[in-house]
């Protein structure tokens, strides 16, 4: 096994160092200073083979600490801040959450035996390493650091919550035992049913809901499940030590079918999606087309036959991307309806306050700026356009011609503006409805200006995203955003909207300001698109 561990470490080191150089080279400005020969420089690679793992190890310690702080520290701080009476001591509280998150959800939700990583692919598929030896070595490689990374965080947790060292060690040991039980269960289940539990979304969904529920809800309902008492009881300790020990034996030496099963478990489709997630390209899945999107029956109602050229192509695109482009509109309409119903409930419960609110509704312009920024759907539409349409057609000369680019832009702008205007219009209607219920006059100058702001903002954010897409075309083949100006401008827009949300400015001057800047922005953005898109709208 030592030889296999050594080999895996060697492959991992080469892979990590090359990946590091590759991504470093792609950094803005700094990346240009790294020559192509860096890959061949043994000294640089030797230094990096020390630095890269050191960086990885330190981040892992940090990540485990963050995990403990996020899932245990924050709920504890909230309970202290809100003076919620807990039915147990602080350390017991931490143990309770830790048990459900790390000893219940964790072992079933993640399996290092079945986890598909690039290294596994390289070792098993390309280098034809023995699957059993690889799995044995991998269990050691994964779990030894895993346990080490957790220890400091658990010690600090005990220190802050009043737990003893002995309890921390027992908790640590239980973590290992439950992890092994989880792995053994997954291996056993795959052998029997050919299903990998941790990849089954339904099982995982149920498991997470139950786990999170048990982790947080009982104690806030003043119910003590006495997890720490159970976990530190000598009989239970013996019980999980035996089970954990046997599970470890089973996954390391007891199970004999790795050679046959592991390769089969590396489903190509799953691997691709995992790799994409790993490389932070999970955004793909949000815009990716599915078979059902391509169902021809959906075309029956459209007037496609009368359309020609780019109008025809775009119509097809919109019909076949309803899931990505139209469904979000329906979700937003449902959200607006829900907000209206909440308003109605508000009126029923407290009419005086509801009426007062309806009378002052024209003061929510600043909030609306931020809300409309969040509610418009154009960003996702641009990604879908790029990944499912432009990425292929932009390779054709005819599609890159200024006339074609601007014709497409016009059609898309109108179509997506319509989507966002429907949402904006529904918000206005909901507001009118609420005013009618409260018998407040909505035909005031303030309210009419608010409606105008909402509708114009719907157009503004459509133009904003399309403008950035057409002028900077920021997406790479992997849908990563490559253009720094795109990031800066997008961030700036967010900050401006957020500032509008945070400042409590209101009144006619502010509303007029929003109106004028919206109109100006739309005008300037359109001019810039017509001026620069023909030149810069390319696949980078």
């Amino acid at each position, binding site marked *: 096994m030592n030889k296999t561990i050594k080999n895996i470490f060697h492959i991992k080191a080469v892979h990590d160092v090359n990946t590091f150089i590759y991504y470093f080279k792609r950094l803005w400005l700094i990346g240009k200073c790294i*020559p*192509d*020969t860096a890959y061949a420089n043994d000294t640089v690679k030797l230094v990096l083979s020390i630095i890269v793992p050191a960086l990885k190890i330190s981040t892992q310690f940090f990540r485990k600490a963050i995990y403990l702080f996020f899932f245990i520290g924050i709920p504890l701080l909230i309970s202290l801040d809100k003076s919620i009476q807990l039915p147990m001591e602080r350390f017991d509280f931490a143990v309770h959450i830790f048990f459900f998150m790390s000893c219940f959800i964790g072992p079933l939700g993640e399996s290092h035996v079945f986890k598909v990583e690039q290294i596994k692919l390289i070792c098993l598929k390309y280098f034809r390493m023995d699957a059993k030896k690889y799995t044995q070595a991998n269990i050691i490689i994964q779990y030894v650091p895993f346990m080490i990374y957790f220890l400091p965080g658990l010690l600090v947790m005990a220190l802050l919550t009043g737990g003893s060292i002995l309890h921390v060690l027992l908790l640590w040991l239980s973590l290992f035992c439950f992890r092994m039980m989880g792995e053994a269960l997954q291996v056993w289940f795959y052998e029997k049913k050919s299903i990998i539990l941790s990849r089954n979304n339904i099982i995982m969904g149920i498991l997470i809901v139950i786990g999170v529920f048990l982790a947080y809800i009982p104690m806030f309902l003043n119910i003590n499940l006495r997890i720490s008492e159970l976990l530190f009881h000598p009989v239970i300790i013996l019980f999980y030590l035996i089970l954990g020990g046997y599970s470890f034996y089973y996954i390391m030496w007891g199970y004999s079918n790795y050679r046959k099963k592991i390769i089969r478990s590396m489903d190509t489709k799953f691997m691709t999606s995992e790799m994409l997630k790993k490389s932070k390209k999970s955004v793909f899945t949000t815009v990716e*087309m599915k078979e059902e*999107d*391509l169902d*021809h029956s959906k075309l029956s109602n459209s007037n496609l036959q009368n359309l*020609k*050229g*780019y109008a*025809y*192509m775009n119509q*097809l*695109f919109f019909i*076949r*991307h309803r899931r990505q482009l139209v469904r979000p509109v329906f979700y937003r309409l449902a959200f607006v309806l829900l907000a209206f119903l909440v308003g109605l409930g508000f009126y029923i419960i407290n009419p005086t306050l509801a009426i007062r609110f309806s009378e002052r509704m024209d003061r929510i312009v600043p909030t609306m700026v931020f809300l409309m920024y969040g509610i418009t759907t154009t960003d996702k539409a641009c990604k879908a356009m790029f990944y*499912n*349409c432009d990425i*292929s*057609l932009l*390779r*054709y*000369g*005819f599609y*890159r*011609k200024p006339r*074609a680019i601007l014709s497409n832009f016009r059609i898309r702008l109108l179509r997506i503006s319509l989507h966002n205007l429907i949402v904006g219009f529904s918000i206005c209607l909901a507001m009118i409805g609420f005013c009618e219920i409260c018998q407040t006059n909505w035909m005031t100058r303030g309210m009419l200006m608010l409606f105008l702001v909402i509708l114009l903002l719907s157009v503004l954010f459509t133009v904003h995203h399309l403008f950035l897409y057409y002028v900077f075309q920021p997406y790479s083949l992997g849908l990563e955003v490559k253009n720094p100006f795109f990031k800066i401008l997008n961030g700036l827009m967010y900050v401006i909207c957020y500032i509008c949300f945070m400042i409590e400015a209101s009144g006619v001057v502010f509303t007029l300001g929003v109106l004028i800047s919206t109109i100006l922005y739309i005008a300037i953005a359109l001019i810039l698109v017509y001026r620069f898109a023909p030149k810069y709208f390319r696949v980078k």
Partner: protein
Amino acid sequence: MELRLRGIKKSFGEKEVLKGCTFDFQQGKIYGLLGRNGAGKTTLFNCLSDELIPDEGRADLYREENGENELSTDDIGYVFSTPILPDFMTGYEFIKFYMDINQRKSKVNHSIDYYFDLVKIAPEDRKRLIKGYSHGMKNKMQMLCFLIARPPVILLDEPLTSFDVVVALEIKRLLREIKHEHIIIFSTHILQLATDLCDEIVILHDGILEKIDHQLLYKEDFEAKIIEMLKDEKPNE
């Protein structure tokens, strides 16, 4: 009509792929562009089709009636080695769309089905989504694009390798049939294909284009000589 390349250079980082390609390609001929892996055949095609901007040099199209003008994307039909087509359309819809936007350029007015018949795409496949097409079928769709638009310059980046023998033969026949009106440049690794189909052989080696003596095509030791020439090149991969 002539396609005139003058000193086209293109580098990627420190790697100089095209070191000044100069050549005149003439109408009515099919040119076989030979080169080893990584020699820069696709880079040259990408520079000509405006997908890449060359670092130096220019490409012009000389016509007797118009004189010399800079090569534009309208003048080019480019068949990629890996076909890239919009997955969300059916083959039929894509061809309809393509015919719509090339209506003015198309000299003859054929039906959509005529074109499908031409490349032997079965009627039941025409209304299937391109997403489900095989590599060969996608390649046929790309072929249809230049058959519809009939641009003066046609660049084919190793296209025939994915076709079955019947379609490959059909496409070869088609290329021979239309070559009189076009300049066809055909990149390939397969020497036999080059000798069989092409009127002239151009070698891209060490970043430079070099024409092979036409007489050499018919000599017995043609293959051996070509391999010898390409061996001189430092492999880029």
